[in-house]
């Protein structure tokens, strides 16, 4: 499902009344069935953008429309997209199976049917046998698998992922990335994946949208033409290296700029 983001600006008002522009005139066409990564330094508004696309946050100005160009719909929470959060946001009082089946339960699907479908998804993310565990009894990687299954069970056309693997250790992260690549190849959803890892963005994405530091604007859209199915071994190839170098230079400029601004702001305070 196509996503058309036009001139989205997000301004946060802080408590002392000053305004912070998190996102500035962001426009991009996300193509149906594509895996788009949004890469940028922290504070560039990339998570905010994902939440605006999901209808979870409201943009200060600008529009997000979803669907075919001749019949677009305004985005809304619980609409055609579903979010996978960095903090997972699993319900601690629900077991794994009741977390995964939550969306179906809210839609009024019978217990027998939603458990049957949840079991299939739990098995597909490698958590068979953990159905009646509580989230607190699982490792970070396992919790993120539950979060993924909980989102996938709804079979919505758009998958939003907000730094889902950001808090995982390096080994778990690699396993999860490969799993996500496999799921993407099987389902071909439209994916918007927010990350601050250059490796991750290039490995997963069909395109990498590199953001500027605050206020967040698009610095460059980098097409990634690595063949699919992809695997972590591709990180060693020269094509990957060239993309990495290019993205790295873009990001380094932004990070230095952001740091200089922070230093200047700190200096002004003194």
């Amino acid at each position, binding site marked *: 499902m196509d996503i058309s983001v036009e001139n989205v600006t997000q301004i946060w008002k802080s408590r002392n009344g000053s305004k912070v522009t998190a996102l500035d005139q962001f426009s991009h066409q996300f193509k149906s069935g594509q895996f788009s990564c949004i890469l940028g330094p922290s504070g560039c508004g990339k998570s905010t953008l994902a939440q605006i696309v999901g209808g979870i946050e409201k943009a200060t100005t600008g529009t997000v429309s979803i669907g075919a160009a001749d019949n677009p719909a305004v985005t809304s929470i619980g609409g055609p997209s579903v979010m996978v959060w960095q903090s997972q*946001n699993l*319900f601690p009082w629900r077991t794994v199976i009741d977390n995964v089946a939550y969306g179906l339960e*809210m839609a009024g699907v019978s217990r027998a049917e939603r458990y049957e479908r949840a079991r299939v998804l739990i098995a597909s993310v490698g958590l068979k046998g953990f159905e009646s565990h509580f989230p607190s009894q699982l490792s970070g990687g396992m919790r993120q698998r539950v979060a993924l299954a909980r989102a996938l069970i709804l079979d919505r056309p758009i998958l939003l992922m907000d730094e889902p693997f950001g808090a995982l250790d390096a080994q778990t992260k690699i396993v999860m990335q490969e799993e996500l690549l496999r799921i993407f190849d099987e389902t071909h959803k439209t994916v918007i994946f927010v990350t601050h890892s250059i490796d991750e963005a290039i490995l997963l994405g069909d395109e990498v949208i590199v953001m500027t530091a605050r206020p967040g604007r698009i610095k460059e859209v980098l097409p990634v033409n690595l063949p699919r199915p992809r695997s972590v071994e591709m990180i060693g190839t020269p094509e990957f290296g060239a993309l990495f170098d290019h993205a790295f230079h873009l990001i380094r400029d932004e990070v230095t700029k952001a740091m200089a601004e922070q230093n200047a702001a700190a200096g002004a305070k003194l």
Partner: protein
Amino acid sequence: MNEERSWSGLAEKVLPALSIVAFIGAWQIFVDYNKIAPIYLPSPLAISEALLAMIGDGTLFTNLGATLLRIFAGFALAAVTGIFFGLLMGMSRIVARVADPWIAALYPLPKISLIPLLIIWLGTGESYKIVISAITAFFPIVMSTYAGVRQVDRGLVKAALDLGANASQAQLTVVLPGAIPTIFAGLQLGMGVTIILVVAAEMIGGSARGGMGSLLIQAGQVMETEKVFAALVALTLMGAAIMKGQQWLDHRLAPWADHR
């Protein structure tokens, strides 16, 4: 190393019980050796005899039953109204704003000071004892329910809405269970003050209707000190049993809250 650990593990289990046994033993020896008059301090043996006699002639269970009934009636009233208003306050800003000055004014008031007024209005019968304990328990319950609702992770609510829950489904499936550990803590506080207030109310009014409080006052007035102690032992055990039972129930109803 291992031996040491098993020793300290054993000590951890045995010592608490041993300390009680040692205390009672020391008490008995102290009273016997110094020949203290039972009016001032009866020996543990005399107290247990009195306790057995009270069990034998049925006075203990009649009075304990009356007290328990009042405790559970007062607590149930406070729990239902406290949770109801706490949820209402947590879910509606306007209700919270209206309730705020009332709670701020009434919460610090010692509820026991309402006893004269309640006796004027309700007499010294059952309703006065139940109402005074319910009023007292209402406050910790309503406040922790409100706090529990307020501190529910907003991220979880957003996730629920994103997964297709409507607003009332999100309240029912996220806000309510999210608040439960805090509500339970409030219920435990509420139960504690209910016990205190019921016994206090029984001491002040309605000796004819029984209860542990009136049993204590009556025994005290005629200097049956071993009966006073026996009643205190019974009250202590009752309180401990209620608290333990409540903890067990909390664990059964909210097993996720323990291993967080």
